[in-house]
């Protein structure tokens, strides 16, 4: 019994705040409850899920979210890892560099998104101004007007914001690696790649796992940036699942169907992530 006492505070906190809303959402996904039916709770079985399968807007938003997640998390991870490796080698100024690199993470997305919209503005935007002055562009680009450039703008803003998150977690992991392991390899005449491959990477694995998992989760539920910068436009080209779910829940007031969108997305994401987790655990069992 005593062994489990350690979990009690965390368990109480998670149950009180997260589990009840999550279960409620799960339950609601099987019900009809909306402005349309006068907010009467009616059991609908799998009705909402059937509707979801035929919902082209949901499929489109899933594709957008998937694309966004894969591209932005890949870029963020590579940049974050390179930065962590580079900064870990710094002897002096490490504190200053770490803090400087953390700056984007310290800015509030809900407000920064408004200012990003301004930076990407075709007429007053500083981005176009800089690109034109440096001769890269001849005439201004309306970044948020085209489906592809709007997506690129959102990815750019997100990468900028979240590289520090990956970086700081990986750096914490790097600093845990015992130096004598490297020294042992060096004595065997191993090169930089061998050191990375046989010491750094396996030791970093749990941190890679945590940073990637949470970046994927955060990227998959991206909301603020999209909602403020493009509103999901043009023509739904940047509408993510979270934006669609938010609109359905809060603006169309369809609580049943909105819950279904969330539940289906979570199920999908959980299948992928837990599969990945099982794979990793098998591969690096010692470390998990």
């Amino acid at each position, binding site marked *: 019994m005593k062994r489990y006492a*350690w*979990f009690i505070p*965390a*368990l109480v*906190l*998670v149950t*009180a*705040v*997260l589990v*009840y*809303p*999550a279960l409620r*959402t799960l339950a609601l996904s099987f019900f009809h409850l909306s402005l349309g039916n006068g907010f009467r709770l009616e059991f609908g079985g799998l009705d909402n899920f059937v509707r979801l399968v035929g919902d082209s807007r949901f499929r489109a938003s899933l594709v957008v979210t998937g694309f966004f997640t894969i591209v932005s998390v890949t870029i963020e991870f590579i940049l974050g890892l390179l*930065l962590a490796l*580079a*900064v870990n080698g710094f002897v002096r100024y*490490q*504190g*200053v*560099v770490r*803090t*400087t*690199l953390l*700056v*984007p*993470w*310290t*800015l*509030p997305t*809900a*407000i*920064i998104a408004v*200012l*990003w919209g*301004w*930076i990407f503005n075709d007429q*007053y935007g*500083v981005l176009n101004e800089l690109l034109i002055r440096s001769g890269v562009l001849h005439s201004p680009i309306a970044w948020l007007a085209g489906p592809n450039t709007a997506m690129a703008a959102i990815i750019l803003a997100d990468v900028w914001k979240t*590289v520090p998150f990956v970086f700081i977690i990986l*750096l*914490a992991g790097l*600093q*845990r690696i015992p130096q004598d392991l490297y020294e042992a390899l060096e004595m065997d005449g191993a090169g930089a790649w061998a050191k990375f491959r046989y010491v750094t990477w396996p030791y970093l694995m*749990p*941190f890679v*796992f*945590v940073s990637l*998992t*949470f970046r994927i989760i955060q990227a998959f539920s991206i909301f603020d940036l999209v909602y403020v910068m493009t509103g999901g436009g043009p023509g739904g080209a940047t509408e993510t699942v*979270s934006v669609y*779910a*938010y609109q359905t*829940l*809060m603006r169309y007031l369809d609580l049943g169907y909105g*819950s279904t969108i969330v539940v289906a997305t*979570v199920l999908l994401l959980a299948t992928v992530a*837990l599969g990945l987790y*099982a794979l990793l655990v098998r591969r690096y069992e010692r*470390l*998990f």
Partner: protein
Amino acid sequence: MRYFARFFVVILSVIAVAPLVWHGISSVKPAAEVTRIPVTLVPAHPTLSNYAELFGRRAFFSYCLNSAVIAALASIICLACSSLASYRLARVTAQVRSLISSALLVVAFFPPIVFLLPLYEIIRAVRLVNHPWGLIIPYAALNLPMATLLLTGYFQQIPEELEEAAAMDGLTPFQTYSRIILPLAAPALVTTGILVFIFSWNEFMFALTFMNLESTKTVTVGIATLSGAFAEQVPWGLLAAGVVASSVPLIVFVLFLQRRIVAGLTAGARN
């Protein structure tokens, strides 16, 4: 190689701070100049009127104070709960660990928006609307899965021999945890703490819904409810000033904390 690494870090550091610098520039432009074409990279008529508005007409200090208290308590609670749990989690069998981690992850998969409405109902029911605890507890909980998994990875790499030695010295498990394990894990605790602190400082949707009194507003909501002379106007300069004024204390705080860690680490290494 080393020079290349430095070059890379310098370039990315510049990119990291460039938008903030730009907001700093915009924040000292008069309203008319922000929308001037061509864009002026150096303000033609610098003015501090946006900051005067922020600190004079608005209770900006009080917003910052609210946020600081909420974020600090949320980080401490989150760290306390998650470090206890992850210390045990690091010492159970792999099956139990992956089971618990998976359960935590599934909860974390739910996008924050689905928590908004049920939490609002709970917060109202326990009468914590416009009360700092109405945000502290949700923030601590929302970050708990991440903090727990991050710390578990860290605790696992602390050799168990240490605990056995501590037990032989007559320390109870809790004493071992608080006197030996926690100090060893200080870098990870601080890193996690910083992430939770910044998350709580910057959170918007819950803060907007749960806090609506001028005296209880957090800094993000404070900035978001700024406005110009008329309702339709988006006060770009004022927003930029708000962002700069809210992130500078945060950055100083992080810098200070980092210094402490580095100092602590070198002290630890010497012993």
